[in-house]
């Protein structure tokens, strides 16, 4: 086993991206993710990579588009307001079927909002961040270890499926330090990308990277083909973790920092004899609907714990086809529920069930 190091979540993202072979980072500073850029600024010049502080978030995402067109891995990171700005570029990446990694360390919104942790970009991330019919892969880390591991996985799957991937973290995950075992250095993607625009050597037709398609017939075909790929992803790439679900009567569904808080509440509730467990989505798109639907046959109720007004609750109710009631425990605006608050919700559900 490799030695563990103590790192902030934001630093773990940066180091893991480098270990996965990413040598191009473009960004613009914003709290609470600036450590990603700071780490890249220090490290990239030393390893022959590129760190570039762009003039804006929009410039940064389009630089990512440029590097992605050559088949090379590149990434950008920001926090909620900056991600809004990047949405046009993300839509273009999706339209041109280009792989890239976008990191969103969420803060409270809408608008400039605040700088404290939030999960209020759930809809933005999971519904395709930008105009048009598309998805991006969305990963929700719940530890500094997962900040590192899922960064590598996101890059790998972005290349495998030729689409943008988003790491959807929050201010707490970005700022906290935990021991982390860094992944081995590995190439997360193919070095030979037959679609890349890297020069023909006068030996093959041009590769054209473009999201413009003026023929409706051809554009329809492209959209349909893309959704066939999405169906494959939904079948193969869902990731989740189950905790104390063996005999659970109440199922908490939560991701990121709120899943960590819920874990404490579950331990406390179990000590009171309440049978509660958790299904923690690790991928938010594709959403792990299958294990949730299976759980709907066993539990009495669900409790969604989020730092937004219940955005994932919609996906949860769809996944379980409204077979069981779904309650919501939330705080917003940068506020975070205590484990006691979650415990109170669990108690109320347990009372109601008796």
């Amino acid at each position, binding site marked *: 086993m490799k030695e*563990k*190091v*103590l790192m902030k979540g934001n630093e773990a993202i940066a180091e893991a991206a480098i270990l996965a072979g990413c040598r191009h980072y473009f960004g613009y500073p914003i*709290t*609470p993710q600036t450590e990603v850029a700071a780490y890249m600024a220090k490290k990239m010049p030393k390893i022959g990579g590129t760190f570039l502080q762009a003039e804006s978030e929009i410039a940064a995402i389009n630089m990512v588009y440029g590097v992605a067109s050559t088949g090379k891995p590149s990434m950008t990171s920001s926090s909620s307001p900056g991600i809004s700005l990047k949405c046009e570029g993300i839509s273009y990446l999706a339209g041109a079927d280009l792989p890239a990694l976008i990191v969103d360390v969420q803060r409270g919104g809408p608008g400039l909002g605040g*700088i*404290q942790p939030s999960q209020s970009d759930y809809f933005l991330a999971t519904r395709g961040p930008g105009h048009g019919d598309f998805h991006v892969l969305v990963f929700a880390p719940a530890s500094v270890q997962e900040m590192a591991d899922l960064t590598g996985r996101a890059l790998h799957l972005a290349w495998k499926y030729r689409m943008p991937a988003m790491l959807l973290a929050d*201010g*707490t995950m970005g*700022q*906290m*330090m*935990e*021991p982390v075992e860094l992944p081995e250095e590995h190439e997360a993607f193919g070095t030979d990308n037959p679609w890349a625009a890297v020069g023909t050597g006068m030996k093959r037709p041009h590769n054209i990277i473009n999201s413009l398609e003026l023929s409706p017939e051809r554009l329809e075909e492209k959209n349909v083909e893309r959704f066939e790929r999405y169906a494959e992803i939904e079948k193969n790439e869902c990731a989740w973790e189950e905790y104390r679900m063996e005999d659970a009567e109440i199922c908490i569904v939560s991701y990121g*920092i709120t899943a*960590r*808080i819920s*874990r*404490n509440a579950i*331990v406390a509730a179990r000590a009171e004899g309440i049978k509660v467990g958790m299904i923690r989505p690790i991928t938010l798109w594709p959403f792990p609907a299958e294990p949730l639907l299976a759980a709907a046959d066993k539990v009495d109720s669900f409790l969604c714990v989020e730092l937004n007004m219940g955005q994932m609750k919609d996906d949860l109710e769809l996944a379980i086809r409204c077979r069981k009631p779904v309650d919501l425990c939330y705080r917003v605006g940068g506020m*975070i529920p*205590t*484990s*006691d608050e979650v415990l109170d919700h669990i108690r109320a559900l347990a009372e109601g069930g008796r």
Partner: protein
Amino acid sequence: MADHEIVIAGFGGQGLLFAGKVLAYAGLLEGRELSWLPSYGPEMRGGTANCNVILSDTPVGSPIVQHPNVLVVMNAPSLDKYEPLVAPGGKIFVDSTLVTRKVERTDVDVFYVPATQMAADRGMHDLANMVLLGTVLRETGCVGEETIDEALRHVIPARKAHLFDANKAAIEAGKGYVSAA
């Protein structure tokens, strides 16, 4: 060993995050489960700041400390905010140079350490945090004495390596201080 759920709170600039980092790094060296969570944002420039450190033998759930069993306060607003939240039987460490009021709770152990004055008397301005850390180490045993030196060497940035001895001396002063209560 029981979990140590630690809150270190005061003004930005007092080295609260640094003191927490030393504890976290010592925990790492001892192979313990741990988390370190800072407050961030404008409070880092003079407002009220804090850091949460959890040292445990089992995986850490929430990194947010709700009921600390070790509280270190370096200003009055932090004592007001965190005193009611301390777990019964917990330990409160007060920089009594900066916080003049007494702790009202009777179900906790309290240690008044004039850390800012002690640091100033020794010509170690800005090291009141390490003085308090010394008392915390003595009273809680949350990390071993021998790992603190190595943790300090890791956490002090290379350009400030010459300050190791002063930090160490501040910790020793805090370890040796006996509260008048």
